[in-house]
């Protein structure tokens, strides 16, 4: 979409009633400073409108309920995925990313299987390319916030062992974060496998999903929308039912989903 097309749609975009071109607009704003300035002006105007409504008085106990909702969530170490609109919005991104990850998982896994030094040395470059591909695909989904960031990691056995995999976390400033993990070449022994995200040495652990069965290639894809900021979760671990680590990987640095300047 060119500048004229973006400018034409920016007012509706700012007012939250866009016509389904949100991802294309955000993609353009990622590199076009002039349109970004215009968008910022319109966004600020739209943001102001919310305060124009005749004030209504909520129930006296709403404050307590709000506080309880947040403090309960804050004190919990694990929360279930949220429901409703946020999940629906986030799901669009999740679906696009899952499709993308399925593709890159194959390539990454093949590279690991070969074990050749040259391929291992090129892993960092490969991850950058994979992340760039993710960016493109994620931007094709609707409702991508311009502050969205993604991190990618590859999973390997801690010692000799079968299987490998890839993981993607998507961190958004305004909708729930998401994680997608794909494994392949695993043996179907001691199922279910538990996939966790972990933060720091003594940090928190977030159970992403249970893998209850594998496909004919020993593979599985799990994805989850989480009600927790995934920024600090840097490690992905897949364990079997006995708790043995089957795969482990470190997430790369978070990178903006927006495209670089041309």
């Amino acid at each position, binding site marked *: 979409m060119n500048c004229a097309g973006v400018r034409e749609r920016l007012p*509706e975009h700012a007012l939250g*009633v866009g016509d389904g071109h949100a991802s294309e607009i955000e993609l353009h704003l990622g590199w076009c400073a002039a349109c970004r300035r215009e968008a910022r002006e*319109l966004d600020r105007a739209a943001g*102001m409108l*919310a305060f124009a409504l005749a004030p209504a008085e909520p129930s006296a106990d709403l404050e307590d309920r709000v506080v309880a909702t947040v403090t309960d969530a804050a004190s919990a170490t694990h929360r279930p995925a949220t429901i409703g*609109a946020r999940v629906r919005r986030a799901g669009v991104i999740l679906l696009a990313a899952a499709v993308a990850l399925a593709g890159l998982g194959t390539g990454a896994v093949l590279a690991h299987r070969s074990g050749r030094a040259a391929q291992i040395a090129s892993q960092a470059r490969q991850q950058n390319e994979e992340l760039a591909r993710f960016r493109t695909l994620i931007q094709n989904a609707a409702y991508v916030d311009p502050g969205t960031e993604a991190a990618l990691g590859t999973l390997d056995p801690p010692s000799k062992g079968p299987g490998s995999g890839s993981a993607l976390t998507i961190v958004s400033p305004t909708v*729930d974060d998401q994680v997608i993990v794909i494994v392949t070449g695993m043996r179907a022994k001691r199922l279910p496998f538990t996939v966790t995200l972990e933060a720091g040495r003594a940090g928190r652990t977030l159970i992403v999903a249970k893998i209850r069965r594998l496909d004919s290639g020993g593979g599985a894809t799990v994805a989850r929308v989480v009600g927790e900021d995934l920024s600090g979760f840097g490690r992905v671990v897949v364990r079997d039912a006995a708790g043995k680590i089957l795969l482990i990987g470190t997430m790369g640095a978070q990178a903006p989903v927006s495209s670089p300047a041309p």
Partner: protein
Amino acid sequence: MEGLLAGDDAAIRALYARFGRPVYTMGLRLLGSREAAEELTQDVFLTAWRKAARFDPQRGRLSTWLMTIAHNLAVDRLRRDTGVSRPRLVLVDEVPDVPGADEEVVLMERDEALRALASLSDAERRLIARTYFRGMTAREIAEADGIPLGTVKTRLRSALIKVRRANEEKEPS
């Protein structure tokens, strides 16, 4: 924001004291029931807590960020509830303040919003109301009014620019 991030009771109450009513008001006006508005308010503050670490003051005001979350959630729900009649919009100049409302808590943002709305013509106010507060797209408005889509879009932009310029001198660039 650090307090909110930590789930600190006092920090949440402070944020609620400043933005609880505007968020609830938006929910009530857009969704049309107290129950839905209260549910929305809880969702908004929960989302704000989850995303507190991601808030960047360099990118905009806290109020804009929070009300954007509220607006997104409310419009999502409006669209999901297709078939349910949309509530009648009530702008501030159509209804007096709630009796007993504490004037001291009238927000700076509301003053700015009033000033901005006052800068618009009646037609522009109605146009903004149908989009921002009722979730209508430009195409829906064009079809309903029998006017070209491009005209609606041009008028929307013009109205937003007026809103922005009404408070331009007060806002850091």
